[in-house]
């Protein structure tokens, strides 16, 4: 099951840019802009492909359909994730609704409650590299303005932010973030453990029009601990969908249809 949990945090992800700003923003205002990029402002579904590269060669792949809706009270995303591949995992589901998290296997027809720690097993923590609500979970400090190459080797003028965790929901204690000036496109992120160890490096690119905004369709995650490991998260088929709140409970897991 644990392998299946990889990617489950992804649901809250993706989203993108806000309108260009004319006045120098504060660090927290930049973060708000990034969150607007992440949040399309309506419930949606998308298809996400996680491809793992070991020693620069594709070694593993998982395809998911993600249903996401923001809880307006908590500002957290509720997510339903359904596995499309590999074949051994077809139809398996993960529910994340705050701390109410369940895993469902259609073969056994059993729902198992999982902890936030279990959610982060496997490559799942990759999802948190791009998770939403940075403004809620982190306090930002502006370190400066820098010109940085993005994943396509194009120079981007960026704000360099230093984020410190400010809520229990924050997965990483510290994050460095580079945000393109004017668009609030995330360009790069570096994610650190409590001890200050660099865990992951993320590049956001391939911005495309999705649900009324330009959003990164691919995130490249470089594992800073396992030097041979790189994971890409590619999202497609992003659609607005009316998702009732009743979907985000364990008894709905057997009812979710990916078609």
């Amino acid at each position, binding site marked *: 099951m*644990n*392998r299946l949990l990889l990617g489950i945090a992804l649901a809250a992800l993706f989203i993108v840019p806000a309108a260009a700003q004319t006045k120098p923003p504060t660090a927290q205002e930049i973060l708000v802009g990034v969150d607007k990029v992440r949040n399309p402002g309506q419930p949606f579904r998308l*298809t996400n*492909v996680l*491809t793992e*590269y*070991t020693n*620069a*060669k*594709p070694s593993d*792949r998982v*395809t998911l359909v993600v249903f996401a809706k923001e809880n307006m009270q908590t500002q957290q995303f509720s997510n339903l994730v359904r596995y*499309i*591949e*590999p*074949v*051994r995992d*077809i*139809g398996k589901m993960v529910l994340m609704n*705050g*701390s*109410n998290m369940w895993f469902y296997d*259609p*073969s*056994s*027809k*059993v729902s198992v*409650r999982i*902890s*936030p*720690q*279990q959610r982060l*097993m*496997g490559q799942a923590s990759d999802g948190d590299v791009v998770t939403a609500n940075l403004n809620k979970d982190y306090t930002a400090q502006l370190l*400066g*303005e*820098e*010109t*940085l*190459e993005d*994943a396509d*080797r194009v120079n981007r003028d960026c704000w360099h932010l230093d984020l410190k965790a400010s809520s229990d929901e924050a997965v990483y204690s510290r994050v460095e973030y580079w945000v393109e000036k004017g668009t609030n496109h995330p360009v*790069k992120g570096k994610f650190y453990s409590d001890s200050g160890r660099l865990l992951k490096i993320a*590049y956001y690119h391939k911005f495309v029009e999705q649900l009324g905004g330009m959003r990164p369709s691919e995130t*490249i995650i*470089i594992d800073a601990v396992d*030097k041979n490991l*790189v994971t*890409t998260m*590619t999202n*497609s088929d992003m659609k607005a969908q009316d998702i*009732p*709140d*009743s979907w985000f*409970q*364990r*008894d*709905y897991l057997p009812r979710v249809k*990916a*078609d």
Partner: protein
Amino acid sequence: MRAAAAAICVLCAPALAQENSDLARIPQSVDNAAPPASRAHGKYYVEDDFVLSSARGDLLVALPTPPSSDWTNRSSFDAYDQWALDEKLSFTFSDRFNLTEADGIGFPAGAARNDLREAYFTWQPVPESYLEFGRINLKNGIALGFNPTDFFKTRTAVAQASADPSALRGDRLGTVMARAQTIWDGGSITFAYAPKLHTPRPLDGPSPSWIDPSIDQTNTADRFLFALNLEIEEFSPQALIYHESGRTKFGLNISHPIGNSIIAYAEWAGGSEPDLIADAIAFGKSTGTLPPFVPVLPPTSTAHAFRSDLAVGASWTSVAKITLNLEYHFHQAGFSGTDWRNWFDTAAADPPATPELWYIRGYASDQQQPMSRHQIFWRADWSEAWVRDLDISGIGFINLTDGSGMVQLAANYNLSDSWSLGLYGGGTFGGRRSEWGSLSNATSAIFQVQRYF
């Protein structure tokens, strides 16, 4: 201003060069990623399990029918799929066909076996409300090792290689029933009715034909279930009422996260019923396996009383990707220490009674209920142990009265998206006058291969 900015850029240059050097680690093949898969349902695979086992030679209470083979090979084709017939109607099918080889098994009569797990229609007349008809696997219960509220588990077990309760729960027969469910924001209600369609098959009766759906195991009484799920303060309580043949049982499931890595849970069911011995002997007599005049052995009261079943436990997950589950199981109808002493003493004093004594244990297994009143269950899973595609796990039961138990360790490795290998090893331990130490099976090893399509 520009000069200042230029100065900052100069100062930042080494750092930026470092930042840009991260790009060198992005593989070129990233740009050639394959498109996402289009199939969204259906799971089909073949599996082969080769089992080697060793038997105890010094059983205190001899088995009526000793095992005839110390090896078994089972080849299976497993299918699960769902089809949307129209916007509101769908069909679900789940089935497993087994071909077994072992000493003493005739071919093909005893070798082939088809287990129709599920075949049912789902109609959704209004959003989030469902009516279902057919053979359905209806499962309840939050615990892993013993599920008191899994009322439809009785007599549904099929041949299994693994002793893991999760495997037993995953591959079992469904029950022919009608089920209605409605889900709303914050809860759900389920009502199920399973009719009596057949008289019960005797426990050790002749093997049915390979295609027999075993309705005479799953639908031998009128049964009703009402379940209410609520999402309250992260406890996710579920209350259940179950009725079968004049007996009503109540059930409750509850769970709650503790911190970031612990889930605590409890599952309880209770109702008026006889104890295990009286229940088993009554079933044996009613199905003709035991003569009507045999006394109830070991001696016990046949009276009904309110009895409880409880599974309470917690799971803990470490940052090292290890998940541990520990559960305590209380089965009030099960054997106490006195019952176990009586079981062994009766066998010693009255050897012709041993078939009846073993019948009780077979009945408990068939009902998927613990033999003993108090036991511990543990489970450990280590995901991505040493290498990415290797999972190592273990399960075990310990009888708290006599200290005997069983252990099974497993290693599963995914060779590719389509191929998986599994290696299982385990055994039972305990004294000759203990629950697990009195069983024939001493050790076993399983080699498993799976190929998905």
